[in-house]
């Protein structure tokens, strides 16, 4: 189940790179993502929506949140083509996906702290 949301290979690579800072990176990502979700939900126009989705896609992909990155990519494309019908449903899905990965990241943090 976790594999469709988080790529374990990415996580282990991140831990290797970050060493002691790994838990902090996870925290930072969670905080950052909350801000970006807020931006997504309050975008004034398609351009803002596209930019916010683009940035969120980038950091999600870096953090191995494969499904989140995929959803952000879809949102970015839709915003770009200005096909905004049903866009709120897509934003809702991103919100839902984050609600799934967030505890996974927190668990990962606890796991790394207890190592």
């Amino acid at each position, binding site marked *: 189940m976790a594999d469709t949301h988080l790529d374990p290979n*990415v996580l282990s690579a*991140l831990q290797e*790179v*970050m060493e002691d*800072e790994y838990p*902090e*990176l996870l925290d*930072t*990502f969670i*905080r*950052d993502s909350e801000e970006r979700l807020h931006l997504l939900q309050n975008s004034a126009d398609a351009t803002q929506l596209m*930019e916010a989705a*683009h*940035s969120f*896609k*980038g*950091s999600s*992909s*870096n*953090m*191995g949140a494969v499904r989140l990155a995929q959803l952000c990519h879809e949102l970015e494309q839709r915003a770009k083509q200005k096909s905004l019908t049903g866009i709120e449903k897509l934003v809702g899905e991103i919100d839902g996906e984050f609600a799934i990965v967030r505890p996974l990241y927190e668990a990962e943090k606890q796991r790394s702290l207890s190592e």
Partner: protein
Amino acid sequence: MQSLDPLTILIAEDSAADRMLLSSIVRRQGHNVLTAANGAEAVEAFRQQQPHLVLMDAMMPVMDGFEAARQIKLLAGETLVPIIFLTSLTESEALARCLEAGGDDFLAKPYNPVILAAKIKAMDRLRRLQATVLQQRDLIARHHDYLLNEQRVAKAVFDKVAHSGCLSAPNIRYLQSPYALFNGDLLLAAFTPAGDMHVLLGDFTGHGLPAAVGAMPLAEVFYGMTAKGYGLSETLREMNAKLKRILPVDMFCCATLLSLSFQRRSVEVWNGGMPDGYLHSIATGERKPLTARHLPLGVLSPQTFNDRTEVFPMAVGDRVFLLSDGVIDTCDGNEQLFGVDRLQRVFAANRQPYALFGEIEQALRDFGGEARDDVSMVEVSLLEATQLTPPALVYSDSGQSCPLDWSVNFEFRAETLKRFNPLPYLLQLLLEVHGLRAQSGALYSVLAELYSNALEHGVLGLDSSLKRDASGFARYYQQRNERLEALQDGYVRVHLLVAPQGKGGCLVVRVEDSGKGFDVARVLERPLDGVRLSGRGVSLVRQLGRNASWSDEGRSARVEFFWEALA
């Protein structure tokens, strides 16, 4: 990954997690990291800390990565600061925008540390290459400035030497590029003590400083020997030997040397490898080519060098025109040479002698030739001897050791007469006597005349009546050369006697020769006109010296010089 020197790398990324991740990757690779959360911060960080390389997110708040990249490239100027765009952009249009803004490469998200390290390394190589190129460009520019400065200094020094001559004399007109020296062109002119004028137009092989270095010793020999009263032959031999000794094999100097005698109204010419010069007779309109008969200076050994000159009569107003090969070798667009025929046509069309240089230049321009800066021309005209005042000689000694009561006898025999000119030595000896210095020109002219009479008419038995017309003039000098070469016996004796007289003094010069003598009475009957080509020597001696007399059937000439108390 640690193999390269640590760089300072600026990371501009608005996502805190991405920034943190990238910082760790870069730091782990051994570099120093600066961070910025938007474009404006990135530009400011660059301004303050000049990082070597920038990792730039394209989409950032406040100022996006494109604008920040443009500003950073502007600030960096000529220095290459590579910018790698961090992007998950995939559309080619967006990637093109990155390049247009000055981006040098891309790094896609998610980040791959191995690829990032490879890109940093590649960009660092590029950055160093650019720095090296700039450094070398600046080095070349510095060397170039240095070279120009050296040329300026060399030219200034050389101008001092060159201008010690008499190029500004009223009978000389010349045209030369100010930097002709660095094209190997050389123009020198100086008076001999007797008031003759020596002119040299030379052309060294090569360009630049190498072409100029030979000019200095050549000018030194030219001025030194001319001032001491040496003739063309001795000066040529010395110049050739000196250049042969000091120049590399592939360097030499084409040159034409002239000796204009205003008193004898003649020009002596030696041309080694230069284009034809021209002797322009105003009376007949003829332009007699002065053709190269010798190899350039500095080619032959002193033993094989040929110093034989040609002598031509000149009338007042006649001109000698010399030019460098830059004139006739000027090419048009089709590689055609301007050539001698075109030059002759300019001569033929010329009406105002003073306009000739301008007309030649105009013809070169009309010909469509590229402007060459090695075009040198000089024209020397024969004036009345009285129209020219050779500069007074400057002496540096105090006069305390001036010899005032002495005599000396010389006998110069056949082998010596062939190759040695004793006049400069005799003159130098006499000019130790301060009282004689004021009349050094007359003294030298008289000595030269008596000596050449004794040698040519006495020892060599040449008939001066040959010189009555121009063709005889040439024949005379041809015979002179032949007989001198074949000479076995004979002598010229010179007796000098200096004695104090009151507060001044007196010099008696006696010159004897081993020849047949001449009918003194008949020659002395002629009026003192000094204009005919022949027999002028006797008049000249009588005009310039005192109490001139001939004895022993013309084999012994005697003349006196007096001076008063010195101020």
